């Protein structure tokens, strides 16, 4: 063990003058990701100054922002893998709509009325969610089959899907909105009652914090064992502290957004409390769902064989095939995952609007692709990260929400998002050329 430690040479020589650049190098953080975090912070500070009354960084707005980002962020993590494998999925908005409508019909019509089980069965939401995930995966599988095994370009397959699934949504619902959803299901869309509350949020925050520390520790130990260079200890500690601080700050923000007075009064009346309590909202369920998805997808992309195959295929399809990767099956899985994530997006969106609507997710494919691309995913294939896509989604929604709070018209907001998209990719492209 001690022998192994001595083999691990620190990335920076001790005593070297620590310029800003070398500090970043020692942190060994993906520079693109770091750039995005800095961009996001800059956008937030700018809006905090520009939006009247300092509303932008209020706990309420940040909490709203987290919920508003959730569905796009979930779907963007899948889009990263799709684009990394040199494909595209234009059907995600329509798939989200059809799955959302399907789930709305299951819980509002089929289970309660057609099958006669009535409303508010405790298991309704479970059946609904499972059926939705199944449908999403099946549609993704169909896309994957047509792309990977029949060989139709994904642009064509999913362009077709965009039209087909939207139309099926309209037919399923006869163009009507379907409401009267299951109350438990609706909690998945957020709102004060659809949030984890203070205690649970703190527990989750501390658990995530412990996870970060453990991940840093185990990664260091592994590197040491194989004799790979390790970060200097101070940089490990700095990363751990920064990571934990960010997580705990987020929990603190979510907890410091109190329940609206009237809901708190209702709560007090329900429980027979004499005094109306101040209840911290905590992290919303859809946000927890999105964070969970992001974590699982990150592990899948970086630590699992399927994920590495996807990157290999995107980097060089011929080489991947020749080296024995079953490219067709891998591509198939990529689309199945995308379908599943579209279904999770549908769960969040349907629960949030408390209804299945025929035009849900119209144009969403573009937001999802934009989030992935702003997050550093390259259309050349092989490049893209899951956390980047989540940050991309957060940046887009921050711009939209911030400009709305400044009372800009929708068209001006769209211009800003479009410009940011092109500028972000432009900077990325130039930086990558220079790095070469």
């Amino acid at each position, binding site marked *: 063990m001690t022998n192994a430690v001595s083999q691990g040479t620190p990335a920076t020589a001790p005593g070297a003058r620590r310029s800003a650049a070398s500090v970043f190098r020692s942190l060994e953080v993906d520079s693109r990701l770091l750039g995005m975090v800095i961009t996001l912070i800059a956008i937030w500070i700018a809006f905090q100054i520009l939006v009247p009354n300092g509303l932008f960084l209020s706990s309420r707005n940040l909490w709203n922002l987290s919920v508003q980002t959730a569905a796009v962020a979930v779907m963007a993590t899948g889009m990263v893998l799709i684009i990394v494998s040199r494909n595209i999925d234009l059907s995600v908005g329509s798939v989200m709509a059809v799955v959302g409508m399907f789930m709305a019909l299951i819980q509002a019509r089929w289970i309660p009325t057609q099958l006669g089980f009535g409303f508010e069965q405790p298991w309704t939401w479970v059946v609904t969610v499972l059926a939705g995930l199944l449908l999403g995966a099946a549609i993704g599988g169909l896309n994957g089959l047509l792309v990977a095994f029949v060989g139709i370009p994904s642009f064509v397959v999913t362009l077709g899907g965009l039209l087909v699934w939207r139309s099926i949504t*309209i037919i399923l619902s006869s*163009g009507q909105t379907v*409401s*009267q959803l299951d109350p438990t299901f609706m909690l998945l869309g957020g709102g004060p009652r659809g949030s984890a509350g203070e205690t649970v949020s703190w527990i989750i925050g501390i658990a995530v914090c412990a996870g970060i520390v453990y991940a840093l520790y185990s990664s260091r130990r592994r590197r040491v064992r194989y004799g790979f260079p390790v970060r200097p200890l101070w940089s490990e500690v700095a990363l751990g502290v920064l990571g934990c601080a960010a997580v705990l700050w987020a929990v603190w923000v979510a907890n410091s957004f109190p329940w*609206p007075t009237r809901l708190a009064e209702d709560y007090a009346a329900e429980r027979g409390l004499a005094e109306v309590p101040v209840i911290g909202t905590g992290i919303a369920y859809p946000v927890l769902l999105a964070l969970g998805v992001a974590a699982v997808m990150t592990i899948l992309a970086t630590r699992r064989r399927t994920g590495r195959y996807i990157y290999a295929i995107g980097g060089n399809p011929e080489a991947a095939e020749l080296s024995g990767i079953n490219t067709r099956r891998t591509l198939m899985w990529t689309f199945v995952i995308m379908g599943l994530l579209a279904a999770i997006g549908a769960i969040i969106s349907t629960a*949030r*609007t408390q209804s299945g609507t025929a035009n849900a997710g119209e144009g969403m494919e573009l937001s999802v692709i934009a989030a992935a691309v702003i997050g550093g995913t390259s259309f050349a294939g092989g490049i893209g990260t899951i956390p980047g896509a989540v940050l991309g989604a957060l940046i887009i929604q921050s711009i939209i929400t911030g400009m*709305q709070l400044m009372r800009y018209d*929708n*068209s001006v907001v769209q211009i800003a998002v479009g410009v940011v998209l092109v500028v972000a990719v432009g900077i990325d492209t130039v930086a990558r050329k220079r790095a070469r």
Partner: protein
Amino acid sequence: MGHWKRGLVGLGAASIVAASLMGTGAALAQDDEMIIGVSWNNYNEERWLNSDEPAIKAAVEAAGATYASTDAKSSAEQQLNDIDQLITQGADVLVILAQDQDAILPAVRQAEAEGIPVIAYDRIIQDPYVLYMTFDNVGVGRAMAEVIFGLVPEGNYAVIKGNEADENTRFLRGGMDEVIGDNWAPGAPGEHEPITIVCETYTDNWEPAKAQTNMENCLTSVNNDVQAVLAENDGMAGGVIAALEAQGLSIPVSGQDGDNAALNRVAQGRQAVSVWKDSRILGKAAGEAAIALASGTPKEQAIEGIIDFVSPNGTTLTSWFAELDVLTKDNVQNAVERGKITQEELCAGVEAGSIAACP
């Protein structure tokens, strides 16, 4: 492989040609018959299929005339061909739901040259030759605002508008202004005006989820100090209400379309009004007017209630506006009586006896 594919395409083309020839032949053979030709811009839309067409068809067939229709599948060019075909079939009147109000004009000229009356159905065609039959969209905005203004004569309003590129969005907004126009002043809350519009946003594609986000951001910006919301349709009203209820707010919200979900909310007291355009009324009237025109009645007398309407570009159009159903908790049972929604669906989650519709 290539052979049978090519063969199949050839066969398909041949059968289309044969079918259209047969169609034309049949129509030409019975020229004494009265034919009402209807050109839909996009038959796929649920509303035309389920409400408008059956109503027109029933009115036409009740008079013993023949109903012929075409579908342009959202193509303005296809629609010109369709109308050619309807004229060739011997249509005595054309009912046109225009895909594009300008691109359709050559077809109107052609119909005029042939002496065939034209009804512009639902969507405007700004040409004095046509009889324009529609719902009064400005009237929808006016009706929404009347109900909301009646409930909240002073305070902060939010206006959640539809798609920015949609002419209808502006018609609705104009109608609202007819009610609250003299009373509202733009600007920050707190000005001493009876009504202050504190937020006003367009919503991409009329999408409920986006309306919800807009409303959340509105509530954040004014710290929940909103007393009423004018939402331009029911879907968006749903999103708006979800945003309001997440803040524990229960304030009057408007909508239109008579969505079943919205009517249920009206019955529950969560939405103040849904303006319902019963397209069966419009369809029936158009069918009857078409029969009258085909029998030689001048368009000014084709149906009762014809008025002159000055269009946005200043053309005076002979017009007919179908009556609107302004559904509030006091008269929402009309929707049940007219078969729009079942009692059960209307009253789901409604406290029994709280309104007349749900005893």
